[in-house]
């Protein structure tokens, strides 16, 4: 049923788009028709430029995202085990959180050069906060009764963490993981626009300055598809990690 609505929505967009194009009010240099964009995407794919950019951008985003997850969760766990760590990080996080990825790029290029280190630094710097903040509040929000039950079964503090607290906090953490995945991809594209010599962000700006409008439309669509791909990947991962919880939620809603 949802698919029917999706196809219907797509049909509306394409027909309005085509009507605008054929009305001739907007010159095709600014608004290419849908088939023109399709042809441009095919051309980009054939020349290998788009494929290479796609692989570069996705691999940067994925590696950065993985690093973000590991660091963010590790920090949150550390803060749960040693409360002063969590206290100490509070004000620092509030100060670093509002800094946009773009603002970091020029100075990072100077310090680290325009290579993979740049992308990893920028991604981790901006994508870590949702994971860290959500994970640390989810961990500390676990009911004390559960923790005491774990204790009375003779679990150590670390065992309680692995067997009781983390499974309980997982569903909340997974929501923030999706947010972080999206931010990772955006950060890589922005960094490529500002400092890159390759990748989707760089290609986008290059084509825009060459007024290759059809290419630009095609690449923006490609970005959207990438966003969906990332989202699906995380959903798949969540099913793997916390399938029990999702199945339970479905049972309840039924």
């Amino acid at each position: 049923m949802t698919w029917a609505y999706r196809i219907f929505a797509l049909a509306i967009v394409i027909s309005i788009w085509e009507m605008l194009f054929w009305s001739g009010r907007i010159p095709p240099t600014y608004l290419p028709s849908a088939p023109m964009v399709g042809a441009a995407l095919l051309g980009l794919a054939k020349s290998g430029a788009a494929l290479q950019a796609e692989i570069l951008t996705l691999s940067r985003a994925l590696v950065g995202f993985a690093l973000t997850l590991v660091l963010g969760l590790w920090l949150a766990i550390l803060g749960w085990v040693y409360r002063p760590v969590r206290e100490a990080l509070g004000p620092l996080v509030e100060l670093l959180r509002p800094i946009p990825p773009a603002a970091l790029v020029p100075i990072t290029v100077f310090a680290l050069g325009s290579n993979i280190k740049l992308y990893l630094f920028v991604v981790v710097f901006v994508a870590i906060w949702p994971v860290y903040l959500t994970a640390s509040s989810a961990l500390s929000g676990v009911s004390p009764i559960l923790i005491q039950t774990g204790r009375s079964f003779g679990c150590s503090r670390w065992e309680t963490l692995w067997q009781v607290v983390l499974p309980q906090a997982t569903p909340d953490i997974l929501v923030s993981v999706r947010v972080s995945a999206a931010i990772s991809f955006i950060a890589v594209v922005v960094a490529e626009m500002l400092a890159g010599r390759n990748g989707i962000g760089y290609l986008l700006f290059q084509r825009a300055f060459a007024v290759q409008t059809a290419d630009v439309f095609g690449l923006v669509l490609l970005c959207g598809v990438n966003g969906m791909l990332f989202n699906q990947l995380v959903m798949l991962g969540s099913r793997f990690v916390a399938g029990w919880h999702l199945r339970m939620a479905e049972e309840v809603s039924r």
Partner: protein
Amino acid sequence: MTLGNVRINVWGTVLLLGIGAGWQALAESYGSPVFPGPIQVAKAIVENRDAIAGSIGITLRRALMAFGAAAVTMVPFGILCGRLRWFGRIVDPFVEFLITVPPPAVIPLVMLFAGVGDEAKIAVIFYACAPLILVNTMEGARNTPPMLEQVARSLRFSRLKAMAQVSLPATMPAIITGIRLAIATSLLVSVTSEMLLATDGIGTFLQRSQESFEFAAGLGAIATISIAGLCINLIIKFAERRILFWYYRDGPT
């Protein structure tokens, strides 16, 4: 630790001071203008105070204008989509797709249509804010507890009165969540758009200082953005507690 009514985060202060001191010591040992310490950054902020204050003003004004436009249009639209189920179902896939296209990716496209001026930047910020408010408002309007509506009906409220006194407050927590996200996003995207479409604002100031190797001024601009963001977040938190006091008092239902 508490001093009177004020709670002081000892560990947080220690960490911040420690990082500051370590950074300063490291900068001193390098002793080059390429690696300024916090003291040099503070000096650069004071030296460039007029330029920085003017730039951040421009940035915040654009963020606010775009956010305001998004809030004014998307809150009513979201309520409409949430109340009229069939309409919401048609809008859903559009939003789903728009949300996956990152705002910075739209910048080159907007540049082709609107150039690099105010309109282009406001359009990009609007594009970034609108889905956040829309999605949250829609969800809120959809999930109004049916019990509340039945109570309004049995009290013989008119449709309009029920909307204003029951539906709107019930949707308020969700709307505020969207607004909070959108305000934070508007500042982020405002700076990003200024760096990519450089004309004026703190993003452009930042980029110009880096290009002319005035790193202290560049870091000063980053610090200004960070403090502005912090203040905005605090104001929102305060306002949220004020507006939704009943929600926090009774706990989420």
